[in-house]
């Protein structure tokens, strides 16, 4: 009797959460698969009574869409460049932080600061650092007022000013700016996790190494990295998942055109593609693109887990 009373109450308490989850989580999973298989599905048309053929046309259309390869290429490129770079830098900072006593807390707080920012606001700050102010940029008779902060800094080392993000800038200059911003933005979470992992390593391993007077790099590669490998795996997997969903960092620096002036859409990503299709009411395409993205993330996560299982030491 107590049991039935308890379960009645439990469902009552769970009801608000379950109702919302049914509408905004469970139904989307079913419906997204459904409409991805209805050719050229448009929700507005369906409300008007239209019917759609069953088939894989949405997937074919998305994959053969010229922007798809651009978006996929950009997304993969940004992932491949930023994940290892940010992980290595974060690992170095975490190890360095862990090895010092004075100022450790202060520095730890500083390194966490980029996390508590509005990514649009700080992205715009990065934009201004790379921005060239002038007129007729990219043409023969351009008039430059200032090359901006970064170009002044590299000019100090004798490097010619680079057109990073303005009209007429090269693709690789754009990518370089994005990589710098994304790595800067990704560091705090990684440092936090890796430092937490480092502080959990039993000191006895290091003491044993000290007695054997093991060289520092060997301690790093034979003790620190292996014992930290579960944390590194965690950080890499979340970084890949986040990387494949890259979108707002590009909006922050290049605006909603997803590219420098005159080359809009050049830096579009997979998530950008989904939102583009959605705002053009191409719901079938959007869900096909979302499922493709999910499949990619799933496969990459599985590969990550497989590789790390082989190399992780517990």
């Amino acid at each position, binding site marked *: 009797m107590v*049991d039935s009373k308890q379960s009645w*109450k*439990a469902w009552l308490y*769970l009801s*608000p*959460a379950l109702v*919302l989850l049914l*509408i905004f989580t*469970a139904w989307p999973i079913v419906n*997204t698969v459904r*409409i991805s298989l209805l050719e050229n599905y448009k*929700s507005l048309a369906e*409300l008007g009574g239209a019917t759609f053929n069953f088939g894989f046309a949405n997937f074919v259309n998305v994959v053969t869409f010229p922007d798809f390869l651009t978006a996929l290429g950009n997304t993969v490129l940004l992932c491949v460049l930023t994940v290892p770079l940010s992980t290595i830098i974060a690992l*170095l*900072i975490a190890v360095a932080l862990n090895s*010092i006593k004075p100022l450790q807390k202060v*520095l730890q707080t*500083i390194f966490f*600061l980029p*996390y*508590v*920012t*509005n*990514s*649009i*606001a*700080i992205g*715009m*700050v990065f934009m*201004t*650092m790379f921005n060239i102010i002038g007129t007729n940029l990219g043409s023969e008779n351009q008039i430059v*007022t*200032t090359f901006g902060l970064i170009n002044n800094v590299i000019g100090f080392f004798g490097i010619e000013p680079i057109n990073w993000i303005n009209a007429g800038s090269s693709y690789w200059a754009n990518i370089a700016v994005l990589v710098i911003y994304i790595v800067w933005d990704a560091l705090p979470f990684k440092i936090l*996790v890796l430092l*937490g*992992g480092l502080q*959990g*390593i039993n*000191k*006895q391993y290091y*003491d044993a190494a*000290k*007695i054997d007077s093991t060289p520092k790099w060997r301690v790093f590669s034979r003790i620190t990295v292996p014992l930290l490998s579960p944390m590194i795996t965690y950080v890499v*997997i*979340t970084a890949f*998942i986040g990387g494949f*969903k890259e*979108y707002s960092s590009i909006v*922050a620096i290049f*605006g909603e055109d997803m590219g420098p002036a005159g080359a809009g859409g050049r830096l579009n990503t997979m*998530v950008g593609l*989904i939102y583009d299709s959605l*705002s053009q009411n191409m*719901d079938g395409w*959007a*869900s096909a693109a979302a*499922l493709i*993205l*999910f499949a990619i993330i799933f496969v990459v*996560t599985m590969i990550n887990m497989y590789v790390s299982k082989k190399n992780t030491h517990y």
Partner: protein
Amino acid sequence: MDNNENIRIDALEDNENAADTPKEEVVAEEAAETAPEQSMTSKIMSEKDIEKVTTAQRIVKIAFTTLTYVFLGLMALIVLFPFYWMLISSLKSLPEYQLTVPTLFPKVIMWSNYVEAFNMANLGTLFLNTMYVGIVSTLLSLVITVLSAFAFARLEFKGKNALFAALLGTMMIPGELFTVTNYITVTAFHWQYTFTALIVPFLVSVFYIYLLRQNFLQIPNELYLAAKVDGTSDLKYLWKVMIPLALPSLISITILKMMGAWNSYVWPRLVANDEAHRLISNGLRTAFTDVASGQTNYPVQMAACTVVSIPLFLVFIFFRKYIMKGVSRSGIKG
């Protein structure tokens, strides 16, 4: 606000109890020091050799420590510089900002940029909209999370474990997959251009339910049974015992949820990007480019960025512990 919680959330929990063991360290250091002393007596090394080794080692150690600090200092500078640049740029006049060689401190401090930022970007309205969405969605979300976590942690019912596992399973799916249908749903409900569209779809977070359930489970069941014997109602027990004990987790959830509203960009842009409902991130990106001339008043733009960043810094200063704890467990931004 995107529903992108990650897997392996509990990977970190094991490390939280990592306590420093200074005593052991001292013992071990002594052991390390006595080891060469023993060899000293065994004639293999003369005393001088030992001194040489130790001074050489000491120099290496000092050099290494210096290098570590230089590296950390340099990285800290890189991390901090964008904030500094934002601040000084926000106080410069437009002509000074456009100087060929940028100045590192404003010659004339232009507080008026901030006034202009508020007027140009309508920052006041954006602030109020964001606060409204943030507060309402946090409060509702807390109620829903507490009730669900309580049911999962304390009550017995058929299919509890299966349901909980199913919920955790949804955390692996990227939020973009939900967005497509949710956009259609919100349109069908005629929620476009309302705050409801910004609040309701993200009220339930499986991760927060999970986090709080773990916390509730640590509270001994005997307390609950004793309260039952005394005839205390569930809700009273929840309010008087469980919520106070789980307060740190609730604070973490509140802060992360508020930060989510403050930083959300993609969903609001899709469903409610009109003057009356625009949130701060969306307003920030588009407000400062003069459509006619294509010219941007950068100092004013930076002033707006500073205004948007300051509340986040204040929250960070006061609630650092809760934020870092919540983040290290979830790996989500917002």
